[in-house]
């Protein structure tokens, strides 16, 4: 029924909502031969897949290993070893143990204490560009905010932030940027290697000189012996720095584009700052930073009338679920007062984004400040181009003026 099966085609990258929306209405659990797996697009089915971690595994490395030759497995052994300890790619019981260990640091209550500092960083970043009258929003603002916040929280010194960000970007090539790049696995492993080499002495330092930061807390968990191994500690440092980078950047950029296309909603927020919490939830639903999340079937099952075979790959298309008219009224409209708003932008089930409370807080502070300080902000007359990735909804640049 569908001609286009290239998930990286220009029109799919430009408007995934039209493309995945059509699949949702015509063939909601859809086999995509080119990607080699099922696209799951209805809200109900997406939630069913994400909450059933017994049937649908998040262990992406187990799936990747099957695709590799023995030689490639050897060559990529470091990458496989550490990625298989990244929370996002693991199943219980490992996931349960490590998630419960670090969950306390990322609860809404814990991150609320960071709000004054986040507000200050937002203010400083906006003050640097205020007189200029224009900025490239990602380079000048939305890239820096999450990097500074997670770096400070973890305990990465300010002078190392940019370098760490580069290695983190390299590491992410395997799943985010340029999904069709031939040497992306090697580059990803090299980036990871640099990150591991970077964190090793930092961990060593915190062992001797504990500080009030997350690395120290993780080191202390490792020292108890039964909670976290050394490799798990390193893996967790790298996943936290990585996850704290790109996604919030994209939430801010996508959110601003959404506001600029719905000017009356921007004005509504400006006049009613108390709407900021539901507003951020609506930005997450309307055009969140993650289009889809990966699972594979551990056993034969049925989903939306289709027979899913053991070993089959699935993409739970969050972007389609969040616009499902069966779940949301007027799904293609931005309505910052929408309540309730049970979107799946952060996922669902045990893998619900660990950093969600922090991302929410950063976005709340960013859009409050932007709407108050730059009420007349508008998009510059430049085309919007998105990175070639199946998973992330990531603009290359976003030029704005005021």
């Amino acid at each position, binding site marked *: 029924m569908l001609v286009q099966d290239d998930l990286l085609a220009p029109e799919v990258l430009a408007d995934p909502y039209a493309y995945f929306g059509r699949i949702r209405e015509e063939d909601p659990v859809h086999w995509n031969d080119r990607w080699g797996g099922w696209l799951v697009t209805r809200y109900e089915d997406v939630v069913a897949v994400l*909450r*059933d971690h017994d049937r649908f595994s998040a262990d992406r490395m187990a799936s990747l290993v099957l695709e590799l030759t023995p030689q490639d497995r050897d060559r990529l052994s470091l990458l496989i070893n550490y990625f298989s300890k990244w929370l996002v790619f693991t199943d219980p019981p490992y996931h*349960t143990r490590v*998630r*419960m260990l670090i*969950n*306390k640091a*990322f*609860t*809404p*209550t814990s991150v*609320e204490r960071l709000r004054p500092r986040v507000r200050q960083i937002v203010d400083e970043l906006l003050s640097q560009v205020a007189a200029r009258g224009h900025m490239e929003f990602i380079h000048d603002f939305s890239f820096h905010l999450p990097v500074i916040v997670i770096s400070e929280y973890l305990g990465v010194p300010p002078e190392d932030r940019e370098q760490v960000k580069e290695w983190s970007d390299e590491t992410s090539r395997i799943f985010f940027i340029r999904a069709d790049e031939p040497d992306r696995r090697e580059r990803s492993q090299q980036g990871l290697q640099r990150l591991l080499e970077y964190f090793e002495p930092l961990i060593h330092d915190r062992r001797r000189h504990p500080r009030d930061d997350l690395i120290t807390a993780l080191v202390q968990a490792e020292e108890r012996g039964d909670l976290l191994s050394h490799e798990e500690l390193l893996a967790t440092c790298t996943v936290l720095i990585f996850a704290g980078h790109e996604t919030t950047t994209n939430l801010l950029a996508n959110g601003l584009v959404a506001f600029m296309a719905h000017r009356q909603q921007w004005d509504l927020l400006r006049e009613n700052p108390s709407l900021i919490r539901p507003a951020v939830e609506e930005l997450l639903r309307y055009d969140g930073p993650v289009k889809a999340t990966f699972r594979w079937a551990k056993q034969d099952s049925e989903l939306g009338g289709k027979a899913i075979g053991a070993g089959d790959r699935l993409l739970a298309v969050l972007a389609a679920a969040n616009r499902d008219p069966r779940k949301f009224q007027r799904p293609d409209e931005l309505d910052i007062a929408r309540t*309730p*708003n*049970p979107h*799946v932008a*952060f*996922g*669902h*089930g*045990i893998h*619900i*984004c*660990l950093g*969600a*409370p922090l991302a929410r807080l950063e976005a709340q502070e960013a859009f409050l400040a932007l709407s108050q300080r730059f009420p007349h902000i508008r998009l510059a007359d430049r085309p919007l181009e998105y990175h070639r990735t199946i998973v992330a909804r990531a603009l290359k640049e976003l030029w704005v003026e005021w």
Partner: protein
Amino acid sequence: MARRLRIWVDYDRCVGSGICVLTAPGVFRLNEDRQSSVVDPAGEVEEKVLEAAQGCPQTAIFVEDADTGQRLFPPPELA
């Protein structure tokens, strides 16, 4: 005598992270939709109940003093 608690879950927010069940298994259980449900509000000491409510990434768990109606969690700024 420990005070009686009124505990409920906002089903528009609950995503079934399971964290409350792991923190206070005597109070919370995942139902057939894999959302949290309160099986026994007196199934754990108050400290554990509040830890479970605070641990929820979605702030989906509400706790009150059952006799006075005083809200124990979440505070207004998180509700």
